[in-house]
């Protein structure tokens, strides 16, 4: 398996313009790791939600992207971190329709449904880190004999 240069990165999330770069990077990295179009789109959309939360609710931060491997499958791990106010009630934050601002309140819960693995590390006053991982699962060869 070739190493995926250009996947690992740490991108700042400080402005709307940065969100554009985040989406672009995730799309390129996912494509490079062999994600199909639908999975690329899902991961990019999840990244867009989480990066915007980092910017809007967390007051800015960064995204770290890493190439992970499990067995023979490539994965992309994205960590969105800020030093903002933190999330006091995780269950409530993950509830569809709950927003402390004027959003739809679909971002966090929606992002969780769009990725394979999802974890939040947050405490009031201690910032928030949301880490997601998705795997590029390629369909097996139809008649391959193992």
């Amino acid at each position, binding site marked *: 398996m070739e190493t995926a240069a250009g996947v690992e990165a740490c991108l700042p999330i400080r402005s709307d313009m940065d969100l554009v770069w985040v989406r672009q990077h995730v799309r390129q990295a996912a494509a490079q790791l062999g994600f199909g179009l*639908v999975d690329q*789109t*899902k991961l990019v*959309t999840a990244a867009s939600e989480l990066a915007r939360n980092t910017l809007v609710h967390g007051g800015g931060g960064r995204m770290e992207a890493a190439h992970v491997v499990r067995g023979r499958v490539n994965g992309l791990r994205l960590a969105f971190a800020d030093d903002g106010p933190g999330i006091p009630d995780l269950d409530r934050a993950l509830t569809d329709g709950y927003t402390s601002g004027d*959003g739809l309140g679909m*971002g966090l819960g929606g992002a969780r*449904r*769009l990725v394979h693995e999802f974890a939040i590390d947050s405490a009031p006053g201690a910032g928030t880190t949301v880490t997601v991982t998705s795997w590029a699962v390629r369909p097996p060869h139809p008649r391959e004999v193992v």
Partner: protein
Amino acid sequence: MPEYGAAGQGGSPAREVGEFLLRRRERIAQRWADETLFRTVFTVSREEAVEAGRAVVEALAQVAGADRSADPEAPGFLVVRDQLARIGSARTRTGVTPSQVSNDVDALRPPTVDLLVADLPDAAPEAVREATNVLTVLMGTLRLVVMETALSEGQALIDRQRLQLMEVATPVIKLWDGIVAVPLIGTLDSARSQIVMETLLEAVVDQQARFAILDITGVPTVDSLVAQHLMKTVAAARLMGAECVVSGIRPAIAQTIVHLGLDLGTVVTRASLADALGYALRKLGTDIVTEASHGAGER
């Protein structure tokens, strides 16, 4: 004219070139002002071209005097870096290619060498050759510095254009009497979606449109914010008496919207712009036919 000591005596060739540049800076700047690089950048005033040229010559003199003719990082260049960046980027902004700019800078060399040779009538051929070599290296370094600054300015330009692409005024196209369409391209952030909404509502009023088609084929990502913007636009158009149809939702985006949990609710969607137009025409057509048969009935 002040005497700086006879050329070819004492000092290294680099020093001599530095002294020559200082001594002849006015002549050199005058000659440069007629060359493409300065002529095309300073179109308004030749005096400005000469002034800019003078500053660059002085910087070169300092670089040569410090014996750093081959060093683009020489401190002497610092003072003219901004100047050079402006010259280089002014050139590239008019659509001139980097290699053309490189040629433009290169074109400054021959007249300068001519002046140098003319300035050393009594020097030994060996000394002239050495001095010419130094000057040639120095002018090559100048070219490097200009290219470097112009290229980094070029990157800033690309970034700017990218930003502008996001801000491009969104055209509203009249597809039919009573049907307008907006092809959305790029990132639908809050600022842009505000513009889209305003131009669309204006068009709905101006054209007395009954249908407004929002085509999102060119929108790469539909997240909750984009969806929210779309729904607001649809609701606003409805208040103005127009029905909105969202077209161009690609399969991957449709699946993503479902997983995200977004409910486009009452928004009418169609796969393609053509489908959306067909939908609107049919609905308009029904009305037209009804009116026509009414008319026939009255006769």
